[in-house]
């Protein structure tokens, strides 16, 4: 499909406006991310396009450099509307809580 259907565009914009992920798939509301600074911005930004299980799923593979690459892919390639300031917040949060511990 070339263009986003107006109804879905509205839903996506609402999601951005409310800073909450939706439309959600049944069950994804049960995903709990580590309660720490940066969590809310991470949930609101990443959850616009995908469920948050992508984050713990990749935690065993990722580190600071990996998350930096991944977040920039989301912004540059997938068009995620995340400010530079929030990119840093998300990067810090994921590097600290969803990364392989440094050797």
């Amino acid at each position, binding site marked *: 499909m070339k263009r986003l259907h107006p*109804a*879905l565009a509205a839903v996506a914009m609402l999601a951005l406006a409310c800073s909450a992920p939706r439309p959600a798939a049944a069950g994804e509301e049960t995903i709990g991310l580590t309660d720490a600074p940066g969590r809310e911005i991470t949930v609101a930004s990443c959850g616009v396009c995908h469920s948050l299980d992508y984050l713990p*799923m990749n935690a065993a593979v990722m580190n600071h450099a990996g998350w930096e690459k991944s977040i920039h892919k989301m912004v540059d390639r997938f068009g995620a509307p995340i400010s530079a300031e929030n990119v840093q917040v998300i990067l810090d949060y994921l590097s600290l809580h969803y990364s392989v511990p440094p050797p």
Partner: protein
Amino acid sequence: MLTRRELLAGTLTALLLPAQRAQCGGDELLALPGKRPLIKRTFRPPNYETPLADLRRPITPNDAFFVRYHLANIPTVDPLQWRLRVGGASSHQALELSLADLKRHYERVTVAAINQCAGNRRGLFTPRVPGVQWTNGAMGNALWAGVRLRDVLRAANIDGSALEVVFDGADAALLPATPDFVKSLPIDRALDENTLIAFEMNGQPLPHWNGAPARLVVPGWAGTYWVKHLTDIRVEAKAYDGFWMKTAYRIPTGAFPGARFTSQETAETTPVTEILVNSLITSHENGARLARNRSAELSGWAWDAGVGIAAVEISTDAGQNWRPATLEREQGRFAWRGFRWRLDTHKVGPVSILARAVSRSGARQPDRLTPNPSGYHHNLVQSVSLEVA
């Protein structure tokens, strides 16, 4: 093509239906509407893999078949309203076909074929790589029925300038800036008699989560080309340059065997194309216990991109010696082929089994993986450790 009501209905279905939940080791088993519980990798977009126990039958049931999406806007398509548009710069007769048109005007064909995600077993790579952490179940074997893509392309009156055929489905991104999931095939593969526009799977209409009402079936090629909810086919004289061809689903050039996709190849990278020779032990999970002196049989599947399986070799001494397993009858060269091996249960203690498939062209599963950044083409020799007690 889709009404607002239909789109919202699909979204609401995903929102409101309660999921059945269960645990299976560290994995969560969840049932999407119309599916039995599968291993949930991600909720949205939905990525669910088939548990080993559901890969034991020659044909993988529709409700057990894996689900793989890249983008989360997945409409429920009304098969009566659905239309397939065919055109492009190398076509001189634009078509708009309903499901009834496809069934009425084109020859119906059936093919048994493996549908395997390029990233199947990504989660088993060492060192690990990011992406959906699939184990063994991002694959299945099914009977696909539909019409030949080439018959439709001939009706679209394509000329000699055709280089690639580009496919788009009804699923889309949530944000306008996200690249739509669009794939292309080289013209020769598009014109292959085995490439289908399929509307049935195992004798039933395609399940929603597997591409209803019609999807592309490209036997021997990785699942990424099997575009679901197919809506647009364009025959073009130049290489398609979208994200999902130029950036995603690529491997180092020359690193793997398989068909070359020359119009998409660069000096550094090339698209994933054909699946590699591979096998899967389905009868036993790692760590399974066997009763002493009770007969036990190891079994599983072997497959490749369509050359066919010549042998499955088993080693019980860590790869020093290999002996042939018994092969089952072929279900077709694009389907998997069963193998069986009588286990020796006379001695108490650990039993280590290695299994490797050999194709008719002599390709054999490797004992070392070829590293690649996205974790494609995992076809390492299979191993299980059992215990006779």
